[in-house]
């Protein structure tokens, strides 16, 4: 039975040195990276934004004056039911010079009929269908092949977009000519559908809305979400488009970085998506995402670490940070657990509770501190506050275990090549060519 007085006397008597010994993992890695670095960076970002507001306004004017054609491409399979809503949401855009290209990658539902009808009624500009499924990369490449715009915006069919989202995501191209691609700010639309979607909404607010501002600012932003990303057409032509997935979003971002272009995150370009609403779907999604770290960072693009002529420090740091915080620290966390079990078996109960309190306090601090920096909330801050204590279990245990399983599967079995998300005919070649 837990005794609160014992616990209180334990924490008052434990001492600073022992606290550091017990919470070394948190203090050494997580506090430093996710609170200190992020807080400092985001304050600097805000200041910089304020200083550069005229330059930003000029960039916007230049963009609107040039009025370039934007090709919005939406590859997908069995997405017909979402396309109408998407087309309507795009019709509301403040920026009007765009074309919508929908690619149906071998759907076996009513997608072709729906899309043909939408095209006939002028909601979409071009609908192309591959009768045989080729995978998301090939579908996106087909759209790219027939896109006529100067910029390519890649969207997911089940998302919707703020009225000024297209304008906002393209403007940074006119702010910095070295930007090759821009990621949009993806938020969870169905945050109140289930507990699992609420926790994902908090995760997105933190890891995407804030995390990507920071990584973009530090020059280590590495994944432009497939749900909302903008690309320079000339850059995409140089690359030949997307390579075989899963994980093609991160892969294309790295490929653009390798060409020497900057990758930018635009928090004001907002996209709402539906997050997986059951743990099963979430696990499936995260296993796919996490496997790509091993496949793309450690295999396909391992040359980032080699001192070749194309060596580039930001890319090196980006990869190192990614691998350190996602792969190495994931393993280190288990070392920490073992360390605690072996060295403090009698205090384990208090350590777990203190860990929970520490992470929860951190989460509350982060959530409230970063709130003013967020572009927008889907719900009032207080809606999420009650759920924040659960983030310790969600982020600290659940996702960490899923991530570990994904890394194991990919390291040992190269499981991503067998993922039904991509057709086997392509994955077989990707595996053989170590792509």
């Amino acid at each position, binding site marked *: 039975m837990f005794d609160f007085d014992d616990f209180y006397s334990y924490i008052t008597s434990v001492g600073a040195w022992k606290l550091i010994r017990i919470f070394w993992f948190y203090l050494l890695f997580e506090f430093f990276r996710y609170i200190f670095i992020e807080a400092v960076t985001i304050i600097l970002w805000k200041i910089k934004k304020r200083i550069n507001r005229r330059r930003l306004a000029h960039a916007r004017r230049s963009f609107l004056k040039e009025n370039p054609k934007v090709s919005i491409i939406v590859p997908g399979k069995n997405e017909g039911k979402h396309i109408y809503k998407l087309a309507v949401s795009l019709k509301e855009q403040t920026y009007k010079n765009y074309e919508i290209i929908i690619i149906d990658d*071998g759907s076996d539902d009513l997608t072709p009929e729906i899309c*043909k009808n939408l095209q*006939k009624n002028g909601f979409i500009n*071009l*609908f*192309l*269908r*591959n*009768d*045989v499924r*080729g*995978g998301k*990369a*090939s*579908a996106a*490449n*087909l759209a790219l*092949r*027939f896109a006529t715009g100067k910029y390519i915006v890649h969207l997911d069919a089940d998302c919707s977009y703020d009225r000024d989202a297209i304008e906002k995501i393209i403007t940074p191209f006119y702010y910095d000519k070295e930007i090759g691609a821009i990621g949009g700010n993806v938020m969870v639309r169905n945050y109140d559908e289930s507990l699992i979607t609420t926790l994902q909404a908090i995760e997105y607010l933190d890891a995407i809305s804030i995390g990507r501002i920071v990584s973009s600012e530090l020059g280590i932003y590495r994944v432009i979400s497939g749900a909302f990303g903008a690309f320079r057409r000339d850059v995409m032509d140089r690359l*030949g*488009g*997307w*390579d*075989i997935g899963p994980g093609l979003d991160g892969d294309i971002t790295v490929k653009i970085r390798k060409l020497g272009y900057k990758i930018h995150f635009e928090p004001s370009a907002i996209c709402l998506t539906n997050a997986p609403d059951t743990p099963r779907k979430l696990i499936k999604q995260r296993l796919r995402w996490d496997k790509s770290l091993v496949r793309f960072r450690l295999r396909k693009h391992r040359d980032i670490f080699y001192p070749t002529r194309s060596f580039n420090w930001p890319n090196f740091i980006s990869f190192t940070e990614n691998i350190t915080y996602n792969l190495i620290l994931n393993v280190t966390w288990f070392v920490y657990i073992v360390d605690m079990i072996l060295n403090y078996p009698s205090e384990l109960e208090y350590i777990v509770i203190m860990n929970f309190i520490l992470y929860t306090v951190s989460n509350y601090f982060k959530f409230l501190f970063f709130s003013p920096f967020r572009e927008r909330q889907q719900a009032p801050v207080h809606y999420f506050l009650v759920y924040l204590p659960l983030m310790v279990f969600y982020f600290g245990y659940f996702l960490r275990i899923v991530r570990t399983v994904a890394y194991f599967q990919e390291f040992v079995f190269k499981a991503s090549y067998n993922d039904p998300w991509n057709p086997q*005919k*392509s994955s*077989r*070649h*990707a595996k*053989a*060519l170590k*792509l």
Partner: protein
Amino acid sequence: MEGTADKVALEDDFLLRAGNFNLYVCLHGKPLELEKAIIYDAIVIEAGDQPHTLNLVRKVRSHLNPECYLKPIFLYKGSDNRDALIHNLTDGVIFSLDQTSFLIPVIEKIYLRIADLTYTTSISFEAQMIDKCLNLLYTRQKMDFPAIMYVGSSIGYSFPELSVNFHLRDEWQVLDILNIMEAEGIVQGDYTDRIYQCNQCSSGYLIYREVCPTCNSTNCSSEDLVHHYPCAFIGPISDFKNELDSTLHCPKCNKNLKHIGVDYDKPSIIYTCKNCSGKFQDINVKAKCVLCLNDNEIEKLVTKEIKNYRLTKKGETAATTGYVSTAKDIEEFIGTIKIDTFRTMVKYEVERLKQNDYNSNLACIYLKNAGGLYSMIGANSQRALLKDLVDVVRRNLRSSDLISFMNANSLLIQMNEIPVKIAEHVLAEICDIMKRLISKNFKNYETDIRYKVVPITTRLSHELQIQQLTNEFQA
């Protein structure tokens, strides 16, 4: 004298005798004068060029007067004439004018059958056409009335005895009339084919074309889309071709494409419109109407069934007793009475006049080219038009005056106790209003409405008086 033809020069034509029958011979290149031909027992047409011969046959068979359209027609030197319509609408072929004796039994048989017929004056255009068709079939002892695939028909199929009455643009009405005939139990149909008609003019003369869905241009080309598995590049096959050899190179990874299904496939095709540069995968198929030039969406074409018909017993009876549904047609027009009732009323008026000293009149209003108008506007509009015309007449007459349809073209009116001059004046006014009504609604139609008023006399029977009045218009 049988076997020998007596020739009598008749300006451009010949008169031949075959037994007791006088044959009107129309030589090639000469016009067929119907008003002359109608008094002969049969017509012999020298078969020259096919269109001309067909035109002459049409002229006879499409006439509304049974004395004309039932006239036996023979072809002279027409053995090599393969036109299905001519073949079905003529009664035989002779190779020499000396062979007319062979025609005698044929002519006799036709006239024997003609004698069985009862001519009713049908109110509706459809009923008139059905009457005509039944009369022709009955007199030629044709029980089968098959659909003949015919290049000269705007619906692709011809039913000669019926189709002959229609111009190319109106031929679609044949199928509607056949449906009425089938619904009335006059003929029984067996499905044979399905045709597609223009949704604007109902013509079956359609040219099916693959067109760009954006600009409707036919100037489109298609290409296979090629998906290279290893690098996920996908594009038209021209992206993979080079000018040096026939190998396919991936433009993204520069690898050779080796084996379809192994390292690449062709998941679909793409069309490019050379007119508007549009890209699309589903080319539109449209059907352009040759007659009205309307570009029809395939799914909006009108579908009709083509059937081979067979005359039923009811059909045969209808030919000999007259087409029954005409009575129904007349009843529909409020303000008119049946022709039989009208005849009776004229009879009473003749008797009344014998007792009294006043003037009563019989009048006829005749719509000369009504057939053309009816065929142009279709059955429903025809009925509406006739109702409007009856309204005009009714409003301008006294309520005691009687109106009846003689047929779809002729209205009979009995105007009692009124001087003939006033009756003429009233009729002139009515005809003027009718003309204005028609020309206002059918701008391209030349209206020709005539009328005649005669005083009812006690010296002649009512039947004779009606006949004399209408004869002028029926010729």
